[in-house]
């Protein structure tokens, strides 16, 4: 009977290798097209049509990642806390929140863009600004963080909670000192996914953040993320090579952020190893 199921092994390996191969292929394609076109002038502080510098976009991207995680991180994780640790599992509120987050998760970027434009840019009269962009993507990544937090929390063995409550610890202490460390890796993978979503996003930003190429001086400024920068460079076919160079840098930045968050995660989640 070992033989009978061995095709599963083949299947699973094939799927895994396909995925990785595809990724290698894409990354290779980007690097192949991008790295040769990198130049020092692309990292000058100020953008001009001559240097098509990505520095302003790098800064904006980092600011937006930081700021939106600062909001969506706590809000999402706290929502997860509520859903798993507080809410009565039979309450009517629960499916509503779940439906809301699932729906938020499925709302297309372009709809987020339109919404952000209508609400933040026009209704609130913020104009195209980092504020508008940050708030829009904050809502966008919220469901990712919520659902990964929820999953991670649910997977924590109840006996651990019992152990903590049994010692007279309150919910808060139980959550923060016993449950959270165990759930950390799961939550972290959600955060990384969220960062990925921000970094890869363009449609939602074009309508909220705008696409100004100048260096940010306040959060009220318009700006562009790296992905938007790429889009802008490539759209008219004038700087296609440079746009691949930007994509290469984008990939390096993502790798860097992943490494960093793993490091942080290991710190937070290691407990007593």
């Amino acid at each position, binding site marked *: 009977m070992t033989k009978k*199921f061995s095709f*599963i*092994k083949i299947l*699973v*390996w*094939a*799927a*895994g290798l396909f*995925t*990785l191969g*595809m*990724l*290698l292929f894409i990354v290779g*394609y*980007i690097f192949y097209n991008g790295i040769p076109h990198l130049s020092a002038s692309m990292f000058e502080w100020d953008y001009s049509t001559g240097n098509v510098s990505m520095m302003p976009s790098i800064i904006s991207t980092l600011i937006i990642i930081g700021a939106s995680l600062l909001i969506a991180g706590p809000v*999402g994780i*706290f*929502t997860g806390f509520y*859903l798993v640790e*507080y809410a009565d599992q039979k309450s009517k509120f629960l499916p*509503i929140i*779940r439906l809301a987050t*699932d*729906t*938020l998760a*499925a709302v*297309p*970027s*372009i*709809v987020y863009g*339109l*919404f952000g434009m*209508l*609400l933040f840019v026009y209704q609130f009269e913020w104009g195209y600004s980092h504020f508008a962009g940050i708030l829009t993507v904050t809502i966008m990544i919220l469901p990712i963080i919520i*659902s*990964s937090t929820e*999953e*991670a929390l*649910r*997977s924590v063995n109840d006996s651990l909670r019992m152990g903590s409550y049994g010692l007279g610890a*309150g919910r808060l*202490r139980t959550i923060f000192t016993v449950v959270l460390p165990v759930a950390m890796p*799961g939550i972290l*993978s959600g955060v*990384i*996914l969220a*960062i*990925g*979503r921000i*970094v*890869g996003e*363009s*449609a939602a930003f074009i309508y909220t953040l705008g696409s100004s190429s100048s260096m940010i001086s306040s959060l009220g400024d318009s700006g562009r993320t*790296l992905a938007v920068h*790429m889009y802008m460079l*490539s759209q008219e076919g004038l700087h296609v090579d440079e746009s691949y160079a930007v994509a290469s840098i*984008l*990939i390096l930045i993502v*790798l860097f952020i*992943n490494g960093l968050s793993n490091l942080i995660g290991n710190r937070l989640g290691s407990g007593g190893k």
Partner: protein
Amino acid sequence: MQSNFTETFMKYVFIVCASLSILSIILIFYFIFEGGVPFILEEGIGNFIFNEVWRPTASNPSFGILPMVVGSLVVTAGAIIIGVPIGVLSSIFMAFYCPDWLYKFAKPAINLMASIPSIVYGYFALRLFVPFFRDLMGGTGMNIVTASTLLGIMILPTIIGLSEASLRAVPKEYYSASVGLGADHDRSVMRVMLPAAKSGILSAIILGIGRAIGETMAVILVTGNQPAIPNDLNQGVRTLTTNIVLEMGYASGRHREALIATAVVLFIFIIILNTTFLFVKNRGGND
């Protein structure tokens, strides 16, 4: 010692946070529906959704989004067929088959995959998939299969990331117990670990499908975007999202309203999808 005040206070903080996502969805609803629903009512629901002709700028404009509805459904279905099995299998690979040395490299790689901007996927597919499928299937190569393949690949990291997390969350004792009964690795994984992670995997799939329906910037480059109902896999289609993005930049007046109304339809789709899954999940989780 935590005072009772902090406990209660934080509880309300958590409730407020949980309510924020409801608030957000209501706001999005409001703004999108306010822009689109009046148009749909004017035009007539049937005439908007079941009309096959999309000619928004003609002198006698016709706003029928049936082709786009069909396009979205077909392309998403294709993406599910390609992306879900590969995604779930890959997550199993990552959780239970991947050797350590490979995992060190594969894990960040999958995360990276989620971060690559849509447009990059789009141009990649335009340069490599489109010619491939053109040679294979004839026509322009910008067709349902190309778009489905691309989307299937694009939703992989979403599915893999979350599924893997829930697979890993299944207690190891279950695995030991299964192996202790003489089940091999495959069976232990497929029959014990996989079902135990069912609910997590299902939400990963929902998220993935959501991404597939909502994806635009990449699909737009490879579907051909013809607003006509396809009758063959090698024909192009236009999806609801691409319809919005394609024309939003230029539309004004009723055309623009029609596009926002398209977003409304898209929305309703997503809600139907999610409610169905919520239902299925609740049913599935009870045994």
